[in-house]
């Protein structure tokens, strides 16, 4: 069986992620695709760089899959996050959720992306024309210079 939860350095193949959750009992497949945005609060991003603690990150993605399954019993989930250098519009994360009915697939997908931003050890570095910085929290509100996290974090 293809891996359902993983970190990759290669471009994400969204069709492969969808295929992971395709199932005869499903009546809906919801996909979330997170892409690299050029403009954040008026500032132009040139490119992003992602780092991850890969073994733990994959374990936490699997944990999110289990959490989804405990809330939406019949859901099938696959989550892939890319790391390394990503250009504008590249896919950073892809989530596919299949469920028998559509409402659950939307809710479960939303749940999964919010949890990724809370518990998965992946870090994003913004590169701008006039500098670069590791982003300090998953709500994209706190920016801190390298090695100087802000006061907020959302770990459980």
């Amino acid at each position: 069986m293809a891996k359902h939860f993983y970190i990759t350095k290669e471009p994400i193949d969204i069709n492969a992620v969808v295929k992971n959750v395709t199932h005869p009992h499903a009546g809906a497949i919801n996909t979330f695709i997170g892409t690299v945005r050029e403009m954040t609060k008026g500032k132009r991003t040139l490119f992003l760089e992602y780092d991850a603690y890969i073994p733990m990150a994959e374990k936490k993605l699997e944990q999110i899959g289990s959490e989804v399954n405990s809330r939406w019993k019949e859901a099938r989930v696959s989550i892939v996050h890319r790391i390394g250098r990503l250009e504008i519009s590249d896919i950073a994360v892809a989530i596919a959720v299949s469920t028998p009915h559509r409402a659950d697939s939307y809710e479960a997908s939303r749940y999964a992306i919010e949890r990724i931003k809370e518990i998965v050890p992946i870090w994003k570095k913004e590169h701008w024309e006039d500098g670069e910085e590791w982003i300090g929290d998953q709500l994209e509100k706190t920016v801190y210079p390298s090695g100087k996290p802000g006061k907020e974090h959302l770990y459980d």
Partner: protein
Amino acid sequence: MINVLLFAGLQEKVGKSEILVDKDILTIDELVSHIREIESRLDLTNVMVAVNEELVNDPDQVIRAGDTVALLPPVSGG
């Protein structure tokens, strides 16, 4: 000897992906104090410690040689 893995901003600040701590047993709290001494450039405010790929919230939890320890800044994936 305990290897402590570094990522993102912490890794850049130190210029390497791990720190070797010359101890065989110590608590999370002792580890953090020790790293503050040997790598004074690092600001560990809000940095979490993961032991064997799980976050540890108890500063008194004991780490032994052979455990996989990592310092995790607040995450920003997605």
